[in-house]
Structure formats: structure tokens, C-alpha cells
């Protein structure tokens, strides 16, 4: 790891001020992603700003009946929170198997949402791909078994690594962001960005001196939610594909729904075809199967990951069955 100067920021204002710096300054939260990247020389900041003590680490109810989660809240505290799980069960389902206990004890909500891609070319210093300012993507003709099956227009073919991002998009969350120009709110669905040649160095809309401070969750209303992950290993790894569904119900009929897939695209992937297939239908096994089929109709796998299409199909179907209260394995 390259040596760096360190700032222990204790307020939002101080954190932003410390990030505004002529060299490279990066925020440090739980460090479970950033420190590994620095050890591998993927990032070599001259300044590291500890934001754990600067950003809110609590969750609080909002006047509109929703919840507001601070970026410094640790994943374990989210898991152990008395109310969030009751109102937003998919968030807890997504948080339960993140990494390992030790990782959940340190990692924060803000760090989880802003963690960088796990693409092995990205994580290897020797491969200077688009994401590191190079002019090619090594995954295209390389080892791409864990890469994207949706949104594969390039230039990068990563899958977004955040487990929490998917239920946050599905619940229609908004992120509060602060920076030297003030604060703004961004819908979770618009926070994460599809890669283009202009923005491929990042995965979201944050400027260098901006920080995510809060996740604002609207009151869920009369919804049924489901979450299903397919993992190769029970711990120590990311899911191969997973899905959160949040369905607004009218009696037994799905009025409208959000179907969001994770680990399959450069952003949490909201599936319009699946949502259309659900609208106006009774919540049952046939509907789930049809929606799953619709979801994967858009898939464009790479040379080595067609197997993920079936996994994504299963994740969508079982997340919907889960919402319907039908037991799956």
C-alpha cells in the first residue's frame, strides 16, 4: 500500500472539506473494499479521509412513514435493527449473507453501495482496462463467467457488486449526497450509471468530493416483497445472481411491481419486461414463471456466462414465489 496522509473527519462539512484536495483523496468507511484495493495498488490515494465518524450511523423513521439510514451504519447494525426488517424484509435478506461476519461487523451501508467492481481484471494491477483509463475490456475475449448478462453494450461488462443496492432500488429509495457545492438527492435507480466511454471510470453519479450520507426509504405501503439469491458458496463470496421484487397489491392481484436483479449487469437491473408480465396478474406460480421468462428475454450473455441466464431466471421466479409466500428451496 502506498503511504497516505490521513484525516479523521468528524462532521459532514469536515469530510467534504478534506476531500476537496488537489491530489487524489478517497473516503474510507469500513475499509473492507478500499484497503484491499490499496494493497493491490488499484488505488493509490495521497489522502484518505475517514468518514466513519463524520456520517450518520443511525437509522431513524421519517415523517412520511419511511426510514432514513445513515451511510455509516454498519451492516451488522442494519441486520440487528428492530424495525427495518419488519418494514423492508428484502433489505435484511440481502444483508444477511454479505461477505462474512467480520466483514458485516466493519462494512457500512455507504461503503457497500460505493464499493468498486470485483471484475478480476479490474482488481489486477497489470490489466489496464477501460475502468482504469485503458482502452479495452479484457473480459470480452477473456474469462467472463461472472460478468454481465444484461446491459452488455460495453465498454465495461462488470456486474455491480453491491447487495444492498438492489433492494434499495426495488423499494424506491433516494440517496442523499453532500459535496462542496451543497447537497442533493438522487433516486437510487439513477445513482448507479451504465458505463459509457465518458463515465466508465465510475459506477455512479458521485463527484470526487461528494459523499453519500443517507438512504431514504419511502413507506412501503401495501406491498409484498421477495428476495432470492443464488450463491456458489455459502459465505466469503458474492451471489451469482439475485433478485428483489416489491409488488404493490390489490387483493390477490399484482397492481404494479419492481423487479430488480443483482449481479447480472453493471447496475442494479430493473426488468421492465418482468414488471409488465406481473401487472394485473394473480400472484401465483404461473405468473412467477412467466415473469422470470420475460426477465431473461433481454439477456445477452458473454462467451462464458450463458449459464447465468438460467440462474437469473430462477432467482426472479423464486423471489416472486417468495413474495407470494410459496416456499422454495
Amino acid at each position, binding site marked *: 500500500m502506498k503511504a*497516505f496522509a490521513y484525516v479523521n473527519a468528524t462532521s459532514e462539512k469536515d469530510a467534504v472539506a478534506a476531500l476537496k484536495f488537489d491530489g487524489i483523496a478517497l473516503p474510507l468507511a469500513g475499509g473492507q473494499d478500499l484497503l484491499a484495493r490499496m494493497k493491490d495498488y488499484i488505488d493509490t490515494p495521497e489522502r484518505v479521509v475517514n468518514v466513519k465518524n463524520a456520517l450518520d450511523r443511525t437509522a431513524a423513521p421519517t415523517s412520511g412513514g419511511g426510514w432514513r439510514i445513515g451511510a455509516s451504519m454498519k451492516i451488522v447494525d442494519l441486520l440487528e435493527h428492530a424495525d427495518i426488517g419488519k418494514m423492508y424484509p428484502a433489505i435484511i435478506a440481502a444483508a444477511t449473507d454479505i461477505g*462474512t461476519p*467480520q466483514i458485516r461487523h466493519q462494512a457500512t451501508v455507504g461503503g457497500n453501495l460505493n464499493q468498486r467492481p470485483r471484475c478480476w481484471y479490474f482488481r489486477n494491477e497489470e490489466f489496464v482496462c477501460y475502468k482504469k483509463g485503458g482502452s479495452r475490456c479484457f473480459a470480452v475475449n477473456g474469462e467472463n463467467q461472472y460478468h454481465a448478462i444484461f446491459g452488455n453494450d460495453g465498454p465495461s461488462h462488470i456486474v455491480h457488486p453491491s447487495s444492498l443496492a438492489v433492494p434499495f432500488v426495488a423499494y424506491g429509495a433516494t440517496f442523499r449526497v453532500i459535496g462542496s457545492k451543497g447537497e442533493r438527492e438522487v433516486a437510487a435507480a439513477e445513482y448507479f450509471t451504465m458505463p459509457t466511454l465518458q463515465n466508465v471510470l465510475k459506477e455512479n453519479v458521485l463527484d470526487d468530493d461528494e459523499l453519500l450520507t443517507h438512504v431514504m426509504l419511502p413507506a412501503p405501503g401495501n406491498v409484498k416483497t421477495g428476495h432470492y439469491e443464488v450463491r456458489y458458496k455459502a459465505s*466469503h463470496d458474492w451471489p451469482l445472481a439475485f433478485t428483489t421484487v416489491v409488488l404493490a397489491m390489490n387483493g390477490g392481484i399484482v397492481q404494479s411491481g419492481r423487479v430488480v436483479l443483482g449481479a447480472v449487469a453493471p447496475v442494479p437491473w430493473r426488468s421492465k419486461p418482468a414488471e409488465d408480465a406481473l401487472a394485473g396478474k394473480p400472484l401465483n406460480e404461473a405468473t412467477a414463471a412467466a415473469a422470470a421468462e420475460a426477465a431473461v428475454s433481454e439477456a445477452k450473455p458473454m462467451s462464458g456466462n450463458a449459464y447465468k441466464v438460467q440462474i437469473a431466471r430462477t432467482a426472479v421466479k423464486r423471489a416472486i414465489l417468495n413474495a407470494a409466500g410459496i416456499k422454495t428451496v
Partner: protein
Amino acid sequence: MSSSKDNLPDKPDRVSVSRRDFLKTAGVGSLATAVTAAGAAEAEAQAGPRVVGPGDVPVALTVNGKRVDLRIEPRVTLLDALRNRADLTGNKRVCDRGSCGACTMIVDGRTVYACSTLAIDVQGKQIRTVEGLASSGSLNAVQQAFCDVDALMCGFCTPGFIVAATALLERTPNPTSEQIRRGLDGNICRCGTFVRIMEATVAAAAKGVRRV
């Protein structure tokens, strides 16, 4: 500056240093010096948040109930600080990437990967290492159970497992086997002695872990 720093035990994490690395790191020295100067000037000018490092800074840790005063760079991990500077070598450095659990310590009651924690970040917190588990010469219930059921082969993962199992039993004194499995999920035994580790944890739970 760079050449002497490069020889510190906590610096090189690779077996061989490629020419590219060398050139990169060699470049860092001058840059880092520039940053200190700029950082100091800026800190004074704004009276905003204080910038420390990249050189050695005082770091005070509370380890196994005792205060440990160190002078280390901000980049030094809790694991390297204790192993290389405080002679607490019980916890092992294996992957150094938060993927194996050999470095597991307890910080304010919860297990963490000490390799993935900056020492400077855990000042003022209660840090416990494997060295802190035995009291006045007698092993704690987990340590004793690991000996009794022979829950190790090479033993390299053992300190991390013992810390993780101790933390688990302090929070959940009568765990189900599912709770043990999940509680120890963050630790890996390359020799594969997981069955014995489960047995030892069950045996320790039966005896009860008393917090020293």
C-alpha cells in the same frame, strides 16, 4: 525515504517486487513528502480537519486491557501494528485481504479482520487478540477445548478461530449448530479440520466462556 520505508516489514505484501512496482514506489517518496508539506500548510490555513501522516504518527491502542503506544504510518493495519511493533504475533497474517480470518481480533465486542482495519482507526476502542483470552496462565474454555478435541492440524488458522469462537460464545452462550456455523463463517481452515472446530466450540459452549 522510499528505499528505507520499503524495507519495513509491513510494507511489501508481494513475494517479488516487479520493476514496475519499484518504479512506482520509488516515485511515491517525493510525492508523499510534497503531500505532507501541502497538508500541513492547508491544515493551518483552514483550521479544518487535521491532516496527519503520511509519515509516522503517534497511535495509542488499548490491547487486551493495556495501553500500547506506537509511532506508525497511517497506512499500517491493526494486524501489522500489533505483530510487527507490539510483539503480539498470535494472530496470523495469511491472506491480508479479509478473506481467511486468521487475523480475527475482537474490537468493542465484535470480530474484525485486523488485516483490513487501520490501526489509527481503532484508537480508543477495546481491542482483544488471542493473547488476551487466557487468564493468569489458564486457557479459556475455547482454547482448552481446541486442545482437548485436537481441533487443529497445522494450527495456522487456530488463533483466528479461537478468537471468533470466543466472541461467538460471549454473545451467544448456547448456540445452535447453525449459529456456530454462521458465527465461524468468516474463518477458513486450509487443513480442513472444520468438524473438530465445531466439536471444540460445542464443548466450550457446554463449559461456558467466562469473559476475562
